[in-house]
């Protein structure tokens, strides 16, 4: 892999097991800084195999983002795809993850110096700052996932960390943006949609106390968006829950 961009450690926002996320002034100011995700090589895998895998994942991720935008799903705009360098450049979403808004902190994200009060974060304060109620926030989530599934796109890793609320301009409506489509794929299968929802349900349960009524509101709005398509997904979601419960009893 040739590196063309000199990505500066000072711009690192988050460091995961497979990728680093940077906030970079790629285009000259006053153009906004963009978000660059760098999937680095895993040393324990075969190098050429790894390069191929990372190319095809990057290709899939960027294509799915464009498909989402075409389907009216809020996702970051694609700015750059560098298959040789393993880079995906997207619009930087100014805002906060739903996880953090709900008081769950921000997993893996390296905090700025002025944010050292994370431990005492208060959900009500965040909600106030974004001028939304908890109920509205849950509906925004259900709405976006509904549009996604109607377009036959499966996110593959729905968590409250992978959705952000945009900082609101003047009197613009609140906007929820889905991020991290690294595991996304196209599917018309009811099973895939149900599993996508179940993954989010588990994420809610494990990171947010008293998540049940919250998640019920997410599903309520999701159902409204899906219309006639909701019934089969609902039935399958019940199945998936049952399988999940059995598995956890055995395991």
């Amino acid at each position, binding site marked *: 892999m*040739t590196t*063309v*961009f*000199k990505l500066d450690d000072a711009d690192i926002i988050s460091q995961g097991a497979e990728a680093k996320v940077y906030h970079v002034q*790629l*285009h*000259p100011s006053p*153009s906004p800084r963009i978000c660059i995700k760098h999937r680095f090589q895993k040393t324990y895998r075969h190098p050429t195999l790894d390069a191929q895998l990372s190319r095809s994942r*990057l*290709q899939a991720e*960027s*294509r799915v*983002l*464009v498909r989402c*935008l*075409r389907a*009216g799903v809020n996702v970051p*705009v*694609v*700015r*750059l*795809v*560098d*298959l*040789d360098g393993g880079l995906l*450049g*997207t619009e930087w979403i100014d805002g906060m993850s739903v996880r953090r808004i709900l008081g769950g902190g921000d997993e893996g994200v390296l905090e700025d110096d002025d944010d050292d009060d994370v431990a005492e974060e208060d959900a009500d304060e965040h909600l106030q700052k974004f001028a939304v109620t908890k109920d509205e926030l849950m509906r925004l989530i259900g709405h976006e996932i509904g549009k996604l599934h109607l377009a036959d796109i499966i996110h593959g890793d729905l968590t409250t960390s992978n959705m952000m609320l945009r900082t609101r301009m003047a009197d613009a409506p609140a906007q929820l943006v889905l991020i991290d489509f690294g595991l996304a794929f196209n599917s018309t299968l009811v099973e895939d949609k149900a599993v996508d929802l179940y993954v989010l349900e588990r994420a809610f349960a494990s990171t947010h106390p008293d998540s049940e009524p919250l998640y019920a509101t997410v599903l309520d709005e999701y159902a409204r968006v899906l219309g006639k398509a909701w019934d089969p997904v609902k039935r399958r979601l019940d199945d998936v829950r049952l399988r999940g419960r059995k598995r956890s009893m055995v395991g």
Partner: protein
Amino acid sequence: MLSSYNYPAFNSLAHVALFDNVTNAKELRSRLISAATMSGPDGELEREAVNFAFVDASLVVSEMHLQTALLFALLADARTSLRTKTVHSEILWALNPTNNISEAIRRFGVSDSTTRLLVVRVCTPPTSTSPENIETALRTGVAGDAVPLSCLSSFTDWSKLTKYYKLPAGVPHERLIQIVESTVGAKSAA
């Protein structure tokens, strides 16, 4: 007249100008074609005089749209993987969603009927040509009114863009701009 974008990572500086009421598009186009085959020192001079990306400004929705195509071209150039002859034609190629080079130039380049023109000159290294020389070349070459880049969004021809980018109907312009910019941004994965 010129806006300049500095790309230190690519050791490049791009100069951009926007023109309205252009009256010599036809002449520009034939100069571009003949410059390519002229020989001798006259050829050198003529090629330098038209060494720009001449882009139909009605098909560029935002400065970011242009910058996204420009970055694509700079990256391809840096990796010596240009699909077209020059970094300038690569910008046109990046703007067109298909893989057809002559189609990209026909659609996004200057045509006989072009009246709004976006002109880009990439200098690698940044000092390879002075901005004064570039301005002089544009003053003598383009018959039209230089206008600020901020006029770009008011020039947009949505019906052509809808056809070229296969844009969905009944969608606000704000979203269409996102789709158009993303299509260029994801071009290397298309």
